[in-house]
């Protein structure tokens, strides 16, 4: 899909390893598929998974061999072109966000996540980041939690009590 990678004449750093991992993973999945029902019947529960994993083994082998034929891309390093520190840090931040989401609740964890990532990627003053974070969090909360009634983890914030008391004020 990403057009920047569509015409491939050279091999990217880490591509051989990725190709090898795909071959190994496909072979492992093929044996898992075999263990469902073996070669017992063509209509068994394992027949279709075996066919798909066999296609994966075949395709990944072709891909791996083709990759080996390509010359390495000049001047590209894995840590620079393939997994730059920024991408790795963001991946880690998303992971942390997912871990704290249920315990801290949607509002607090999303606030922390948005604040840190926007500050890190947008690089403006703390006050600007803070106001952008609060505004976007409010919009998301109103659309999803209030309009679409999506259930979001509450965590340690007593949301329902707060909403109820706000509603009570209007009466």
């Amino acid at each position: 899909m990403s057009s920047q990678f569509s015409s491939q004449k050279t091999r990217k750093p880490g591509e051989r390893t990725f190709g090898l991992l795909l071959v190994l993973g496909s072979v492992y999945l093929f044996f898992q598929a075999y263990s469902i029902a073996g070669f017992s019947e063509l209509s068994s529960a394992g027949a279709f998974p075996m066919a798909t994993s066999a296609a994966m083994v075949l395709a990944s082998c072709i891909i791996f061999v083709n990759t080996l034929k390509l010359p390495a891309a000049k001047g590209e390093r894995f840590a620079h072109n393939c997994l730059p520190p920024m991408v790795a840090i963001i991946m880690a931040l998303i992971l942390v966000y997912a871990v704290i989401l249920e315990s801290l609740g949607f509002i607090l964890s999303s606030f922390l996540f948005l604040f840190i990532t926007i500050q890190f990627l947008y690089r403006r003053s703390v006050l600007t980041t803070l106001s952008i974070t609060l505004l976007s969090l409010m919009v998301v909360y109103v659309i999803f939690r209030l309009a679409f009634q999506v259930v979001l983890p509450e965590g340690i914030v007593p949301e329902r009590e707060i909403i109820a008391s706000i509603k009570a004020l209007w009466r």
Partner: protein
Amino acid sequence: MDSLSFFAMSWLSPELLGLTALGTFLGIYVGAIPGLSVTMAVSILISFTFSWDVNNALCLMIGVYMGGVYGGSRTAILLNIPGAPSAIATALDGFPLARKGLAGEAIGLSTVMSVIGGFVGIIVLALAAPSISEFAITFQPRDYMMLGILGILLVGSLSGNSLAKGIFAGALGLLIGTVGLDPMTVEERFTFGVIELWDGINPIAVMIGMFGISEALHQLHHMDKAVIKQKISRIIPKWVDIKKYLPLSLQTSFIGVIIGALPGTGGDIAALMAYDHAKRVTKNPDVPFGEGAKEGLIAPESANNAAVGGAYIPMLTLGIPGDAVTAVFIGALFIHGLNPGPLLMIEQPHMFWFTVGNLALANIFVLIFGLTGIRMFSKIVECPKGILIPLIFLLSIVGAYAINNAITDIWWMLAFGVFGYFMRLYGFPVGPVILGVILSSLTDENWRRAILTERGSVTDLFIHLFSSPLSTVLFMSIALILFTQTPVWSKWMKPKLARRFSN
């Protein structure tokens, strides 16, 4: 005359008119927000409209459906993130157009072509519903199976530079779809003894991961580059353009209706097939496909909206959903005490004409909202990436969580997000993975039904396959796609054919 009054029912009642307008407007934005699917929105709507009058509920949901199928194209064009699977093909040429600063023109053109496609779908639904349903009854399980495989091969061969990578991605998707308890024998498949895996991996989590997270991670590579100011000076498309592309739009609309009418196959496959068709019939595009060809934008957009009308054909005549959204609609009709199926058209023909009229009305609202809301919408792209990307992550996580209120879905989404990032990095197409996941159970079940009816004999399967014209055509298409990838083709046939055509 009776049918006409039912057709016009939602046009004349202010309440129904307003609800259809609201539904279409919501649908466009729901469809456009990555991770928020039309299916999800319609299912949520069922839960708080089941106490309403059935007509009111249907108006709102039909609006969301029609708007949502169209709305997916906007984020595909502006952000290269298809808001819905039916917009996967739209991104291939729509996004390059936006990068050239033609976002407004691309959106305007896709709106008009979507509406044309939508009307073709509705007209066919109204005129041909009975006869098309008769044709669909003759489909054998093997035909459904081959349609599934053909869909994956098509998306694999057209969205990447190597079919091997496309096949790998498609097979991976099919495999992901089989995870869990087998629906026929309740045997565990790829569950590794984990009970949470019994229900399988949520396809929406895979989709959000592969498209939302992995795309946003890729965008981080280009943080330093300035965002291209999206020129949206011209929204109403040029009359010349409409006239020029109308034949293609009509052709692909018919592809869309037919694919949409096939049970299980909806706008996503219709759009990809239409894209492939456009690629084949356009001999000398002004701009190559994949770099911003208008043909590549028009074909999938006409087809996926035409597929809406098509998807209603099996639903209203047979009670079989044409796609995921119509499956939810069947649930909604049941809740309201209606029984979709062959008897619905005989006992309650007014439901049929009401639906047709309402679809037409929603389609008109797509045109109105589609051509007016773009300026506001395009601001999303002008929003700095440093703010937009964190928000995409946030919406992806909320979207994944909201499907089942399960944190497990977030883990799957993240895993597929990171895996998808590396797949994209090394030139693998991610579209086939999603298609594989969606088509997995259909292909698996129909393969087993097909082989069971032949009492396990592959020879009998082949003999009977060639006795049906439809099966033969499907089989030959699959064989042809695979054959074009073999060394025999590239070393012998291709140069020969090329020589013959150049002489």
